């Protein structure tokens, strides 16, 4: 009997059945998508760990005999034990052990160690990998929250979907309270009623669940491919994600989906089955208000129709909860995302692409190569289409700045008083600061000298004499001032560089300095070195081995190199480098590679790689840059390992990545909005049943169809407009915060703010809600006033 009743009901109530089916489909699609993505994220992480760390579960450090190996393999849970010659830190051999039952690893390994007679300290666990299987041990204190996070998000998503979709079931079921009251009065048990409703839910949802799950799998495959092509295509050395799907995940997805839908259907079914027959028979399915509160604003704006719409919306608050939440969150997330990406795009463009627009077109990293040993500099510089090509390497050193060396500007903001101890340390005679050295090829250095208006020389350094006003945290608009006093033109300045090693802390916390001579330079600059500071006339190369001294410093010897300063400048060479970004107190030195050859033995501290900063002609195109890249690759082929970056390519990739991210996050926002819109549709589809009496009563006392339409429009406007009104102040506050944090001027952001996409999203929500109300309006127009008013029992 129930079967016939249910099938008849489904056939005769297509709109409410459709609502339930849409809700089931969307929840299945979302959950399947989520499970598919999480499985692949988990799989990717496992693959990454196995690639980086290895797939072993535990390992014993040191060599073991064949007999010991056999003992290990004899353990029931051990699948295999393999000798790894470069196991620990690629130097120490290990025995890598693989378990068939991974859970046994923490209980079996101590027994294995005991049997082999080796100390526990020699046992290492692959905690990161084991954590991916939710196998944890108290000895591993790292949080490793990735997998638990996946589970938590899936549970949260299921819970949210239950809240969201149970409403669709509730609307459909509530429409029939009266009928079930009649069933109940003639003897149907609550269990039978519940079973009938759940049976209906199962019949309606089976198809959508399977379709949604399959589409979710396809969607997750699509997103994985998209993330590969959009997000990771230009990341060198990135392990590409390959889509995979385990049958167990399908089973799990189906279980989660069915459970979510079942709970969503069971909640209203239980509530319905608990009503007494009388309560059920009396129930007309109409919206009721427990307390009245006037909708003054709506009344003011839209007159009596606004007041009526406000009442109706209050009465439907529960039924529209899903719509309210979904639309609010989707709009809020969409607006925030759009603003964030716009701001990020402006910021990247301003601080990166625009700032470095004219300083590089191609950046080449020459792996494991020193600038002084790179032989292709001239060949590259001679290539067609190249305006300049600077070969450079970076090194780090230190030097002391004495009180009297500091510029007046620097002193005005407190000198080194605010300098962090990890960058600057007070030593005898001054402050020890970091000195980044940029070693440029000779030709480029000479060109740089010419650019500065000084005679090109290859025996000295150009010092970047600027320091940021550290009291002004605005990184976007930094204020620079002279760092140290510039000597008079007739004075010869030198900079004494020292190794950038660890300096022993004195008990007072000051860095101990070597007991070298403390000598004032003619310019008043203090240079500390163990040797004599030679005064070098301009144009005279002073560097010699005699200038480099070894200074005993505690247990180690420290050497210094005295470098003539050719110029103090605030003009940097055209390189894609940023200076003093973290350590505002560093004193950058630009030196030619010839000089570096002389002093590198004393200073050291160079980075492993060298770089080539290439500039093409003005208005160079991507094709031209690609051609130059090919030519450079041909030149260095077989001799050096290089990585190339292309400014135009990078700009396009950056834009593509932002577009990709926007598309992915935007899709989630749209999906969220679809749930809300679905709820609005399910609600308005139920209008004919739930609100026909309300409308008939209004019309019986003289509400014209035009006024009813106005009431509908007001309701639609409130439903679509409320998320916008609530979101706007939050978005404005968030933007304010983001602008403040990024020191971006509001005008700059407002000129490029994403008004159009946000407005279109808002418009799309409004259009969908309006469509739902328009369809409802068409249905409501069909009702017969006389019939509805006459009969309140045939609901």
């Amino acid at each position, binding site marked *: 009997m129930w079967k016939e009743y249910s099938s008849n009901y489904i056939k005769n109530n297509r709109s409410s059945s459709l609502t339930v089916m849409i809700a089931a489909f969307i929840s299945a699609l979302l959950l399947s998508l989520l499970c598919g993505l999480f499985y692949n994220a988990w799989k990717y992480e496992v693959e990454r760990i196995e690639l980086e760390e290895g797939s072993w579960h535990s390992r014993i450090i040191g060599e073991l005999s064949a007999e010991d190996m056999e003992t290990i393999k004899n353990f029931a849970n051990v699948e295999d034990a393999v000798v790894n010659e470069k196991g620990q830190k690629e130097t120490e051999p290990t025995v890598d052990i693989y378990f068939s039952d991974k859970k046994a690893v923490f209980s079996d390994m101590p027994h294995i160690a005991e049997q082999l007679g080796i100390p526990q300290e020699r046992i290492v666990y692959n905690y990161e990998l084991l954590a991916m299987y939710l196998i944890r041990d108290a000895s591993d204190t790292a949080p490793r929250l990735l997998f638990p996070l996946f589970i938590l998000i899936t549970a949260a998503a299921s819970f949210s979907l239950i809240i969201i979709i149970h409403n669709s079931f509730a609307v459909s079921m509530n429409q029939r309270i009266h009928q079930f009251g009649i069933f109940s009065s003639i003897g149907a048990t609550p269990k039978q009623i519940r079973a009938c409703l759940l049976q209906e839910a199962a019949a309606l949802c089976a198809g959508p669940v399977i379709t949604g799950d399959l589409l979710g799998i396809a969607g997750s495959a699509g997103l994985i491919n998209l993330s590969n092509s959009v997000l990771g295509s230009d990341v060198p050395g990135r392990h590409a994600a390959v889509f995979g799907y385990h049958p167990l995940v399908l089973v799990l997805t189906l279980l989660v989906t069915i459970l979510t839908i079942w709970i969503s259907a069971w909640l209203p079914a239980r509530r319905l089955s608990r009503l007494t027959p009388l309560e059920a028979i009396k129930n007309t399915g*109409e*919206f*009721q*208000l427990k307390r*009245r509160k006037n909708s003054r604003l709506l009344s003011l704006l839209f007159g*009596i129709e606004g007041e*009526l719409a406000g*009442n*109706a919306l*209050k*009465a439907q608050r529960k039924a529209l909860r899903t719509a309210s939440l979904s639309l609010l969150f989707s709009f809020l997330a969409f607006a925030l995302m759009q603003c964030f990406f716009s701001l990020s795009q402006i910021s990247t463009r301003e601080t990166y692409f625009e700032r470095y627009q004219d300083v590089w077109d191609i950046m080449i990293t020459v792996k494991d190569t020193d600038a002084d040993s790179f032989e292709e500099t001239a060949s590259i510089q001679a290539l067609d289409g190249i305006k300049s090509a600077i070969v450079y390497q970076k090194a780090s050193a230190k030097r002391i700045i004495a009180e009297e060396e500091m510029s007046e500007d620097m002193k005005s903001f407190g000198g080194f008083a605010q300098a962090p101890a990890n960058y600057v340390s007070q030593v005898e005679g001054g402050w020890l600061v970091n000195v980044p050295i940029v070693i440029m090829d000779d030709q480029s250095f000479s060109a740089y000298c010419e650019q500065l208006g000084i005679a090109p020389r290859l025996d000295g350094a150009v010092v970047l004499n600027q320091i940021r006003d550290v009291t002004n945290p605005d990184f976007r608009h930094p204020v620079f001032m002279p760092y140290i006093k510039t000597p008079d033109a007739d004075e010869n300045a030198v900079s004494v560089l020292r190794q950038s090693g660890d300096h022993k802390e004195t008990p007072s916390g000051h860095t101990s300095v070597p007991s070298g001579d403390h000598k004032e330079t003619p310019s008043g600059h203090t240079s500390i070195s163990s040797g004599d500071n030679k005064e070098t006339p301009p144009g005279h190369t002073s560097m010699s081995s005699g200038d480099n001294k070894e200074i005993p410093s505690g247990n180690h010897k420290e050497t210094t190199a005295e470098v003539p300063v050719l110029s103090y400048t605030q003009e940097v060479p055209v390189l894609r480098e940023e200076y003093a970004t973290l350590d505002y107190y560093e004193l950058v030195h630009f030196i030619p590679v010839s000089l570096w050859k002389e002093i590198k033995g004393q200073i050291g501290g160079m980075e492993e790689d060298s770089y080539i900063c290439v500039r093409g002609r003005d208005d160079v195109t991507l094709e031209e840059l690609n051609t130059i890249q090919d030519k450079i690759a041909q030149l260095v082929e077989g001799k050096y390992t290089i990585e190339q970056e292309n400014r135009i390519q990078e700009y396009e990739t950056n834009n593509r990545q932002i577009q990709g991210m926007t598309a992915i996050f935007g899709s989630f926002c749209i999906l969220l909005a679809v749930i809300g819109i679905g709820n609005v549709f399910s609600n308005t589809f139920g209008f004919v049943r739930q609100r026909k*009496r*309300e409308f*008939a*009563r*209004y*019309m*019986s*006392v*003289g*509400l*014209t*169809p*035009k*006024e009813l339409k106005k009431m509908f429009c007001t309701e639609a406007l409130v439903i679509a407009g409320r998320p916008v009104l609530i979101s706007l102040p939050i978005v404005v506050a968030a933007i304010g915060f983001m602008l403040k944090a990024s020191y971006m001027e509001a005008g700059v952001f407002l000129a490029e703010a994403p008004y159009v996409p946000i407005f279109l999203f808002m418009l799309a929500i409004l259009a969908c809600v309006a469509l739902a109300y328009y369809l409802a309006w068409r249905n409501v127009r069909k009702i*017969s*006033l*006389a019939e509805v*008013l*006459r009969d*309140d029992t045939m609901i």
Partner: protein
Amino acid sequence: MEILSARKLKKYYGEGDSLVKALDGVDLSVEQGEFVAVVGSSGSGKSTLLHMLGGLDVPTSGSVRAAGHELSKLSENELAVFRRRKIGFVFQDYNLLPLLNVYENIVLPTQLDGRKPDRAFVEELLKRLGLADKQEALPGCLSGGQQQRVAIARALAAKPAILLADEPTGNLDTRTSQEVLGLLKAANEYDSQTIVMITHNPEIAQLAGRIIRIEDGKIYNNPNQRRENMQVKV
């Protein structure tokens, strides 16, 4: 002066074998200030007649003229405006709006008409109906009798030309029924309110100045015959 009339009014449902003639050529005339009771058995067509007279339903053929308006010539919007200005309905199931409180229910037709409610008149009405302390209450919190009194107040508040009551006591106990009928009677006597009341109860019909019997969609007694004496006490 004739305020309400129906000419050859027909309302048919279905077709062929399942054709139902709810009204089959009804002629009717009601004078201003008259209290007319329409009686008939269940399914006789009395409610259908009332809905036609109030412009809630459209006849298959024939015409209704009420308060100077030919209803068939009115558009949907005009019909709604006509209802709120000229007709007051009292239904068996009260048909109050559950989302509005007593006062708002009563003044709704006036507000819909864009007029400011006559607060003093409404309060006087509420006092007469014994609802002075229930102005803020929602209909769901009231008894059946109270709800019907609110419905009467709503019908009278807009000072309609015609009050149409469809089994106004159908859901009420005897005592409350007497109260409600007394209110209708008083409105007719003291305010010369034209009332057309539907009932299946001949005793209640005795309260009216004229009784019209309807059966199978046809009026069986002389529609113009008036009763001279009213003997039912309320």
